[in-house]
């Protein structure tokens, strides 16, 4: 039998002016289980709290009800007081007789009557409360960053800076990501390599950071603080510890006709290759799709020229398991394929390129050595047309492969391309066809205006409707909405600002992490405004464009924010769990798996358990179990469960029904 104590607060006159607190205390006395009831001026005051502590001891109370302000205000205060008095802090219930009673009612009899009902309801609930202990789980002090672009590198550096171990898993042979392919960065026009490569080197040299390049995450188990991740280290057929990165093999390899993905296929590389000069790690990789030795067993040139003896044609994929406390997704983006938009003749003419290809054509380390030459005949283009919003901002029912969102970065990089082109080649005519120019961001609009006013880039409001390659020119047919004309421009190059989309690896990764995604395959944040770098799945954080289109400054800012969240988590030795979590009664669970489907956190798992039957046989049954460290206590599963096997601690079916009964009595 419970021994309940009831404390009714006057809150000065805040409560006592409208609610007859003495009458409430008196009424509470007559409720079953109540052994002590009193009113007091200010329950939250030191002496009020002392009263609680003393009465718990004096009356051997097993539960208390405080009738006061909102639990959102002082629940914590009273729980602490109860704990100080030797009571389990979860044996406390609050009857909100201020915000939800005295402050809204003017008439004392009805306010008092309502307060009495609220107290009764709280007593009914606390009678069914059970002492709860917040569990703890240890934290593995190592973080995993998935993706080695600028987002992943920055996150890893910041975490390592705080003194924690961090691993980067990158699917390509080198870290660097998209930023490594970029020539200059807006709005400052400093060289991307000059600011990225030092960070890459810093990451490689930091003894807290391990880089698993040419690797992928293949399995994730566990929960916040305690993940076990299986990393697949793809066979690169070159021993990482022996290769010196001298590059001799990449010059001698006879297989010369491999499209160079780093230059987006604008030139070729060998079957054994180092993606670019500043690659980290600077280790050669053999492309098994093109290597004749791996395909037919004939060749072996690279092995012969390698003085370090690093070539290993027998290499196999390796799988390693590593424990982590936190995981950061930094999987980045890609431009969409534009082959559905062949009104722009991308498939018909090599002189129609995407913006990222144009970036490589401008880059000193690119296929043309930084001289802008059009791909078809390697001549200098004199008229260049930029087309904005290719595949962005399309309606949901679009028949192409378009995206409904704005890709955000295109307006700015196109202004950059236009400006750089005019600066290097003032004899070039540059046209930009836009729907809207969107340049929010520090110094962004000024940058765009400079392109127009200082560099004389022709910005035309309208869209390109058709590109017809003919006689060495690209005949561009477009509308100029402000002039009310259809324009016909004979261009030498057309540059398409292709929409960006999340990397294809993000969706399967989200499944492994039980992290949620939106319909566009961007990771969803825990709260769009207040928790933008956390996934709703505890322990999983988001960095960079995998959460939504972002430019470099934003990406770096978010990378740092994600890192600080990770640091906050890893700094703890133990995680205290919310004890008000769901709990499956295995005897009642019939294994239907409905609850698992509604859990937003992936906290529910199913496994076969052995049960002893009344006839002493044993039976294997599928039953649910809740991981208390992952469950956030929403209760969605409890309603889904047809058997009533799933219940929520602190808000159990019986407790809520008792409240209902007390209110309706």
């Amino acid at each position, binding site marked *: 039998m419970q021994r309940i104590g009831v404390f009714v607060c006057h809150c000065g006159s805040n409560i006592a002016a409208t609610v007859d607190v003495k009458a409430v205390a008196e009424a509470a006395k007559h409720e079953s289980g109540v052994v002590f009831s009193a009113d007091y001026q200010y329950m939250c005051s030191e002496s009020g709290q002392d009263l609680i502590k003393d009465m718990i001891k004096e009356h051997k109370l097993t539960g208390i009800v405080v009738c006061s302000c909102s639990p959102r205000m002082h629940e914590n205060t009273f729980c602490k007081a109860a704990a100080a008095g030797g009571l389990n802090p979860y044996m406390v219930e609050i009857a909100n007789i201020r915000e939800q009673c005295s402050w809204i009612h003017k008439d004392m009899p009805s306010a008092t009557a309502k307060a009495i009902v609220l107290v009764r309801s709280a007593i009914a609930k606390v009678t069914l409360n059970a002492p709860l202990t917040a569990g703890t789980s240890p934290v593995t002090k190592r973080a995993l960053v998935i993706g080695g672009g600028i987002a992943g590198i920055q996150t890893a550096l910041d975490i390592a800076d705080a003194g924690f171990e961090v691993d980067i898993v990158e699917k390509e042979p080198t870290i660097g990501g998209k930023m490594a392919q970029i020539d200059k960065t807006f709005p400052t026009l400093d060289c991307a390599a000059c600011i990225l490569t030092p960070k890459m080197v810093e990451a490689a040299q930091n003894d807290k950071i391990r880089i698993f390049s040419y690797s992928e995450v293949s399995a994730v188990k566990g929960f916040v603080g305690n993940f076990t991740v299986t990393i697949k280290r793809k066979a690169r057929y070159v021993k990482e510890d022996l290769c010196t990165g001298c590059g001799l093999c990449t010059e001698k390899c006879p297989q010369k006709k491999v499209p160079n993905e780093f230059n987006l296929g604008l030139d070729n590389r060998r079957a054994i290759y180092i993606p670019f000069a500043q690659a980290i790690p600077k280790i050669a990789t053999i492309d098994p799709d093109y290597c004749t030795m791996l395909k037919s067993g004939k060749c072996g040139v690279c092995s012969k020229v390698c003085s370090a003896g690093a070539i290993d044609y027998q290499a196999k994929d390796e799988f390693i398991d590593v424990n982590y406390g936190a995981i950061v997704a930094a999987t980045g983006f890609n431009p969409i394929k534009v082959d559905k938009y062949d009104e722009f003749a991308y498939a018909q003419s090599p002189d129609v390129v995407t913006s990222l290809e144009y970036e490589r054509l401008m880059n000193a380390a690119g296929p043309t050595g930084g001289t802008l030459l059009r791909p078809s005949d390697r001549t200098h283009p004199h008229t260049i047309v930029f087309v904005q919003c290719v595949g962005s901002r399309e309606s949901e029912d679009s028949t192409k492969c378009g995206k409904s969102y704005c890709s955000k970065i295109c307006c700015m990089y196109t202004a950059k391309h236009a400006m750089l082109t005019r600066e290097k080649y003032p004899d070039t005519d540059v046209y930009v066809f836009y729907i809207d120019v969107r340049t929010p961001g520090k110094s962004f609009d000024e940058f765009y205006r400079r392109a127009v006013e200082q560099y004389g880039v022709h910005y035309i409001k309208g869209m390109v409707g058709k590109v017809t390659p003919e006689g060495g020119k690209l005949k561009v047919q477009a509308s100029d909405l402000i002039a009310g004309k259809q324009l016909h421009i004979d261009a030498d190059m057309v540059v398409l600002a292709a929409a960006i989309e999340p990397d294809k690896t993000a969706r399967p990764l989200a499944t492994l992490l039980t992290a949620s995604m939106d319909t566009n395959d961007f990771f969803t944040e825990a709260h769009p405004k207040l928790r933008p770098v956390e996934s709703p799945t505890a322990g999983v954080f988001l960095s960079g464009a995998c959460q939504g289109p972002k430019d470099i400054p934003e990406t770096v800012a978010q990378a740092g924010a994600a890192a600080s969240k990770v640091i906050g988590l890893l700094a703890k030795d133990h995680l205290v769990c919310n004890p008000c979590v769901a709990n499956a009664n295995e005897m009642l669970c019939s294994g239907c798996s409905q609850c698992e489907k509604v859990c937003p956190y992936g906290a529910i798992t199913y496994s076969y358990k052995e049960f002893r039957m009344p006839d002493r046989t044993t039976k294997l049954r599928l039953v649910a179990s809740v991981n208390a460290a992952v469950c956030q206590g929403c209760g969605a599963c409890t309603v*889904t469960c047809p*058997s009533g096997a799933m219940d929520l601690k602190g808000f159990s079916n019986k407790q809520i029904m008792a409240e209902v009964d007390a209110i309706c009595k």
Partner: protein
Amino acid sequence: MQKVMIERAAELLSSGKVNRVLGWRAGLFAHDNTPSVFTDAADLQANFVYNEFCGANLSKYLVKESDKEGTVAVFLKPCDTYSFNQLIAEHKIKRDNVYAIGVQCNGMKDVNDREKLEERCASCKSRKHVAYDELIGESGEILDSNRFDMVEKLENMTSEERFEFWRGELSRCVRCNACRNVCPACTCEKCIFDNPDSGSANKAPADPFEENLFHIIRAFHVAGRCTDCGECSRVCPENIPLHLLNRKFIKDINELYGEYQAGETVNERGPLVNYTQGDAEPSVVYERGNS
């Protein structure tokens, strides 16, 4: 049909492919065939029956039978296969232990009026077997059924008329629990109505009012999972049209959240464990129909 089924069942038993056969056993009268397990050919020859009084949905019996050792063969009518799939989805049937034989069904006769089809068969939703290992007879198509006509008729009544209708029907309930016991969606380890800790237990209710809630709670519990097999109404000794409760949920789900047929496939996410951001608001209930 019956002859082919007996032969096939005997063959499966003798070849050792299955250990037991779940079918219908002839009753005392022509119309009271009951579900039964057969283990030898002689019993099959003598007592196995398949005629227009084999309404019982055998899929529920597989919950126990598939849990035993060995393989059980089962005969499933088209509508039974939906329950079968749904039970597999809920991990209630061990699929590997079952050899499912789809059997053609032309509709079952009403035991109360043996000249006409049962209501659920007259408004049959599908002649298609959605799961089976082999077929005897033909598998048909999903039908354009008029099964929601009565629900619609009720919806078009005034609130008072509806209340009178249901009061007339539900007043006859004797709480025998037959509807629950036969329902393939009611396969909990322990039913909440039998569990004193659930807060909903009311086997011997103190308050007649609580019994009114029984059918509402039960209908809600099976909402989104009910395949509309119609067994609840078939077994009701008071002939309460309980399927009209389930069909109301199904109709609402179809109209509000898109066509959904429980048990059509094994892997689908049911409408109550799913959502879209643009779902109708609950106020849609006030906005439609009359009152």
